[in-house]
C-alpha cells in the first residue's frame, strides 16, 4: 500500500506540472486562474495521500482549508470594485 | 544528515536569493512587495527544514511556532505596504 500511495503522489505531481505549464502559458488571466484551480485540487489530493502515507491525520484539515480558500481566491479574482463616487 | 532536510533547506536558500534579486531589481512597487513575500517564504522553508527530524519522528516545534507567527506578520506587513502604495498613488494623482 505505501508503494501505491507514493506512486499516486507522483502521478499527482505530474498532473501539477502539466497544470503549471498552463499557468505559465496563459494566455489570459482566466486561463491562469483555471489552472490555479487545478493546482489547488491537485494540492488537496496530495495532502490527502500524504496524510495516510506519513500518518498525519491533521493534513486532512489542511486539505479542507485549502479547498475552501481556493474558492475565496476565485471570488477575489471576480469581485468588481465600485468606482469612487457611486 | 537527512537528504530530505538538505533538499528543502537548499531550495529555501535559492528562494531567498530569487526574492532578494526581485526586490532589488523590480521597478514596480507591487512586484517588489511580491518579491519580499517570496523571500520570506524562502526563510520559512529554511526554518521548517531545520526543524525536520525524519519520517516518523516529531519535528522541533520552536521553528514551527516562529514560522507561524512569521506568516501572520508578513501578511499584515504586506497589507500595510499596499495601503502605503495606494496613498502614494493618490498623492501622485493630486499633483
Amino acid at each position: 500500500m505505501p508503494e501505491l500511495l507514493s506512486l499516486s503522489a507522483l502521478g499527482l505531481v505530474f498532473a501539477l506540472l502539466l497544470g503549471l505549464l498552463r499557468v505559465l502559458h496563459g494566455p489570459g488571466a482566466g486561463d491562469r486562474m483555471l489552472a490555479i484551480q487545478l493546482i489547488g485540487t491537485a494540492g488537496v489530493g496530495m495532502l490527502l495521500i500524504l496524510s495516510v502515507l506519513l500518518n498525519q491525520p491533521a493534513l486532512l484539515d489542511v486539505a479542507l482549508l485549502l479547498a475552501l480558500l481556493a474558492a475565496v481566491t476565485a471570488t477575489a479574482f471576480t469581485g468588481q470594485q465600485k468606482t469612487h463616487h457611486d | 544528515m537527512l537528504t530530505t532536510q538538505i533538499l528543502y533547506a537548499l531550495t529555501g536558500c535559492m528562494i531567498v536569493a530569487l526574492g532578494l534579486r526581485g526586490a532589488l531589481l523590480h521597478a514596480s512597487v507591487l512586484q517588489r512587495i511580491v518579491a519580499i513575500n517570496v523571500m520570506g517564504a524562502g526563510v520559512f522553508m529554511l526554518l521548517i527544514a531545520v526543524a525536520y527530524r525524519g519520517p516518523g519522528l516529531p519535528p522541533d516545534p520552536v521553528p514551527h511556532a516562529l514560522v507561524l507567527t512569521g506568516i501572520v506578520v508578513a501578511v499584515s506587513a504586506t497589507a500595510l505596504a499596499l495601503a502605503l502604495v495606494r496613498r502614494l498613488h493618490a498623492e501622485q494623482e493630486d499633483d
Partner: protein
Amino acid sequence: MINILSSILILAGVFFYLAGSIGLLRLPDLYSRLHALTKADNLGLGLLMAGLALHSQDLFTMLKLLLIWLAVLAASATSAHLIARQARRQETGS
C-alpha cells in the same frame, strides 16, 4: 479484497487527474478547458477520496473525506463558472 478495491479506486482517481490536466493543457479554448478541469475535480478527487476512505476504515475520517469532496465540488463548480464569466467580460472589453 477491500485493499484491492481501494487501490483500483485510487489509481483511477490519479488517472482522471492526469487526464484533466492534459485536457487543460491541450484543449484549444477557455470553455473546453473548463470541462477538462471538472473531470479532475469531480472524478479524480472523488475516486481518490473513495479509495482512501475504504483504506482508512474509520468513520470519522470517512465523513471528513466526504466533507472535503463536497466542499471541493461546490467550490470548484462555482469558481470555474465565475472565472469563465469574468474572462468573457474582459474579452468583450466592458
